[in-house]
């Protein structure tokens, strides 16, 4: 019963808002908040009562031939994720009415938000591949709706399209991967596949392809290189959405999925290597780009990419524990950072350029403090949450792959650098625009979630807290000095940023390659225009001219030269019709009898 309530409460809310309360914007917001609170409370109960078991009802069932149920898996992994997703989700729901105060599309926003919670909780609860894929795609749809919330802006519509299509590219691979598993093991239910895994692992090539295809899904959803391009653009959506979808939950779905099917992923060393390096490349690339961005939300978006890279790296280094640990802490401090940024944006009338801010530490004191905690957690400063989880990944990398360790360490340095740059430019110095001079602190409904998240970012990484939720990774034996090195890298980065950016009014550095995000968008645009446009035109041409003109009209030309026979037929002359039939019949009779 409870798992159903967790899943369906947000769906009911979405349906209610879409069908009935669309006009009453306040009521819509309340319904949505209540629904997510119901989900959160039920999740907590499920988390506390380990005797509640997963259930299953049939969805598509052909007796003895094919079985796809809708079923819930309730193990420690999904229990933790339930609490995390619904908890962070609830805080963001509470924060949202303040942020969307004057928006005419508020009801639409809350309907989509509820639908999003439904989809994300569905992914977490799914006990089989098909159900996971269904909710997986629904999450893609919700992100499309939410990113494109301000649809009258072309940039928002572009970003929404980009998100949906990029996700679909990933889903293409994911679907093929699912089909491979299904064909090989005859089932899609995780518990039924596990004893059959040998059917896949007995063929290493098959296994590698299969895992990499499934990984494609995670590359799309968790925005890994080379499908990372949608996530920064997704910042076109309202800021709470950025916090919810693009920091704490949706992008975490890819990591969660890889951990969920860990029994397959961990079996293929080749695929693991690819996964680890994709994560590493994403981490360092995004961190490099982040150092040269001027939009507060984009900087945070790239930091999300970079941190997701760390998680994927951990999965690739065969430690699901480390990946989940970082996912857990990251959800708190990234939601905190985005909501803090949202608070700044509301105060500055949606000015997103950090160079038009400055001096906000005094005006927005509570935002400043909480944002600072989030920032310290992100860059891995002890004793904040990020320190523990990042340290776990770094130790892991040090033990398993020194090259990756080097890159990860460099990324840690960059992370400290760009976050401190952001912090210094936004909150210190003098206000650099009229809006920045007169900014005022946000309403309480927005500040409470900030405070809660700040507390979580502060304590989330400690063993006494996190061990209730997760199996914590143990990589301590080899690397006692890793935290020290990480700390040095972090301090160097932070100090560098402080020295470079203190009291500046514009960016002293200008590296075009990084400002243009390694020209990925330009490259993809050229590629898409070249290939797809070309393909479309060629096939249009084939259609119009070769098949239609040559074959069809050519044959109609031949028909013409056949004389009056077929022309009469075209007019619909009955005698000609009969004549043709007659001819045909004679011809057949000839063949049958005299051949």
């Amino acid at each position: 019963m409870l798992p159903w309530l967790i899943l369906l409460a947000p769906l009911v809310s979405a349906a209610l808002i879409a069908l009935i309360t669309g006009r009453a914007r306040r009521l819509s917001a309340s319904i949505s908040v209540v629904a997510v609170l119901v989900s959160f409370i039920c999740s907590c109960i499920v988390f506390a009562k380990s005797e509640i078991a997963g259930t299953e009802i049939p969805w598509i069932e052909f007796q003895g031939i094919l079985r796809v149920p809708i079923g819930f898996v309730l193990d420690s992994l999904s229990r933790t994720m339930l609490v995390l997703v619904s908890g962070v989700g609830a805080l963001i729901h509470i924060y949202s009415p303040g942020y969307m105060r004057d928006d005419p599309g508020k009801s639409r926003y809350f309907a989509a938000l509820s639908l999003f919670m439904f989809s994300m909780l569905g992914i977490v609860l799914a006990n089989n591949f098909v159900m996971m894929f269904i909710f997986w795609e629904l999450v893609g749809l919700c992100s499309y709706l939410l990113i494109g919330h301000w649809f009258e802006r072309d940039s928002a519509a572009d970003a929404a399209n980009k998100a949906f299509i990029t996700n679909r590219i990933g889903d293409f691979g994911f679907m093929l991967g699912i089909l491979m598993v299904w064909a090989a093991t005859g089932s899609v239910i995780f518990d039924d596949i596990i004893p059959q895994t040998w059917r896949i692992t007995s063929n290493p090539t098959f296994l590698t392809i299969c895992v990499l295809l499934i990984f494609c899904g995670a590359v799309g959803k968790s925005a890994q290189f080379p499908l990372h391009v949608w996530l920064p653009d997704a910042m076109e959506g309202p800021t709470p959405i950025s916090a919810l979808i693009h920091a704490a939950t949706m992008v975490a779905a890819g990591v969660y999925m890889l951990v969920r099917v860990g029994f397959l992923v961990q079996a293929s060393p080749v695929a693991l290597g690819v996964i680890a390096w994709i994560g590493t490349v994403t981490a360092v690339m995004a961190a490099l780009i982040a150092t040269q961005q001027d939009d507060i939300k984009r900087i945070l978006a790239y930091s999300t990419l970079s941190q997701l890279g760390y998680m994927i790296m951990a999965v690739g280094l065969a430690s699901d524990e480390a990946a989940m640990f970082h996912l857990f802490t990251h959800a708190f401090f990234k939601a905190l950072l985005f909501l803090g940024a949202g608070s700044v944006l509301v105060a500055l009338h949606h000015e997103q350029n950090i160079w038009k801010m400055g001096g906000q530490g005094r005006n927005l004191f509570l935002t400043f403090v909480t944002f600072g905690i989030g920032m310290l957690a992100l860059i891995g400063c002890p004793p904040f949450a990020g320190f523990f989880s990042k340290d776990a990944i770094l130790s892991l990398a040090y033990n398993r792959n020194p090259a990756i360790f080097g890159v990860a360490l460099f990324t840690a340095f960059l992370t400290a650098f760009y976050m401190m740059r952001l912090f210094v430019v936004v909150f210190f110095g003098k206000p650099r625009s009229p809006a920045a001079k007169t900014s005022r602190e946000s309403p309480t409904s927005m500040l409470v979630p900030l405070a809660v998240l700040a507390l979580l970012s502060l304590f989330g990484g400690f063993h006494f807290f996190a061990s209730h939720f997760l199996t914590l990774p143990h990589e301590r034996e080899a690397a006692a000095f890793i935290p020290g090195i990480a700390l040095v890298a972090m301090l160097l980065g932070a100090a560098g940023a402080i020295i470079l950016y203190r009291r500046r009014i514009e960016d002293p550095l200008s590296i075009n390659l990084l400002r243009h995000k390694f020209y990925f968008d330009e490259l993809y645009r050229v590629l898409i225009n070249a290939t797809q446009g070309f393909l479309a035109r060629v096939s249009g041409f084939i259609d119009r001219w070769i098949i239609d003109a040559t074959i069809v009209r050519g044959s109609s030309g031949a028909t013409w030269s056949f004389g009056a026979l077929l022309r009469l037929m075209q007019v619909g002359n009955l005698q000609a019709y009969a004549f043709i039939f007659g001819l045909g019949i004679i011809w057949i009779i000839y063949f049958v009898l005299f051949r």
Partner: protein
Amino acid sequence: MAGLITTLIVTPLVGALLVSATRNYARALALVFNLITIICAFIIWRNFDPGLPGLQLVERHSWLPAIGAEYLFGIDGLCLLLVVLTSLVFPFALLAQKMDRSFCALMLITQAALYGTFTAHNFVLWFLFYEMSLVPAFLLIKMWGGENRDRAATKFFLYTFLGSVAMLLSFLGIYFARGTFDFISLAELGKTGDVLPGKLKWLAFAGIFLGLAVKVPLFPFHTWLPDAYEAAPTGVSMVLTGALSKMGVYGFIRLLLPLFPNEIATLGPWLLTLTVCSIVIPPLVAWAQSDLKRMVAYLSINHLGYCMLGLFAATAPAVRPLEEMHAALSGVVMQMFNHGITAAALFYFVGLLEQRRGSRGIDDFGGLMQRTPLLCGWMSVVMFSSLGLPGLNGFIGEFLIFKGSFAIAAGYTAVAVLGLLFTAVVFMRAMQSLFSGPLTRACSTFLDLSSHEKWAIIPVTLLMFAIGIAPQFLFNIFNTTVVHMARLLA
């Protein structure tokens, strides 16, 4: 309940007569007759036992024994589903536009022809209905069509008619050799050995294949389709894509697969290649179209391509586990139904836009979401259904087809899955250019859905959700039939 099927077929014919005799309210009268056919179809559904394989509610009388023609109607799960689909698509199409009495009468005749095609089990009878649908459709395009209607109508007629003639000749050949026109005995013949000796069977195969491939249509026999769908008035486009296109797929299932299993297996890789082309190329062409209706028409080819993929995978020369064939065939039947309602609904919406704007270029619209949120919302639902979003009907059929086909023909299926991606790209682009961005001036006086338009679209959309969320009720109709079919083909 004898005579139910005859009643079903005769009702629209009577309707056509009455409608052409009335002066006013032709469409209302046509809708009344559609209400009767819906009730008929419903009674047939109630009297149908989904647990039994084979034909039910059989009506059998001798007709022209000299030429092997027999009055033989009956339904199995597949027939029933298509009858239900036809009963849904026609009233929906009648609601789509204003039409005078001859238009209505022709629509009703087409409807009767479709019922006949989907329930007749003797070739002569079947072919009669099959051809009977062609003439009114031709006239409807020719007389009420848009630009280029003459050319489009002629092309449509010539193409399908040539296909029909080829098919007829082939069947005559088979009849002369084997002396039967009965579908069931023909299927038995196909199972036990070659229907025709030597090279003749290839000739006969080619004839039937051509006739059906044009009708579906299968790449590269599809070029009549965009022209015809584009030129046809909205209601006719809906019927063409929603119901008539199913005749081709149905023909493949009922005639070609049982009659020529060996030939199809021999040509397997080629047929699958054509299918994959049907799936992958049309969305790319659709991507290059600026006319909304043409765009939707091309995507229709892609969706029927999925059906053909499932069929040819189920007959491919490879290891074919029964459960995979079953999944693929179930997917095919599901997809036929889903494509019927979704594509009809897409044309319906394009028609609404055209009525409001006077043209239907994709760039003639912009920012509609600000002016007509309901229209945009419902239309998006239909588009998402068409691009195969889970939770809506389109996904179910496509996913099962992929599931079944992948296990049998992995390479072809992997390429075919690309079709999902391309379709998404096309629809996303269309949605963006129609709904988002600033409101174009020409669209600033648009009216949102009227209550009458809502009544047309809400039931269809609800059905899409129902199938997407709980598809089992449809599977139950045809599951036994499909199991039976899979055993026959195995």
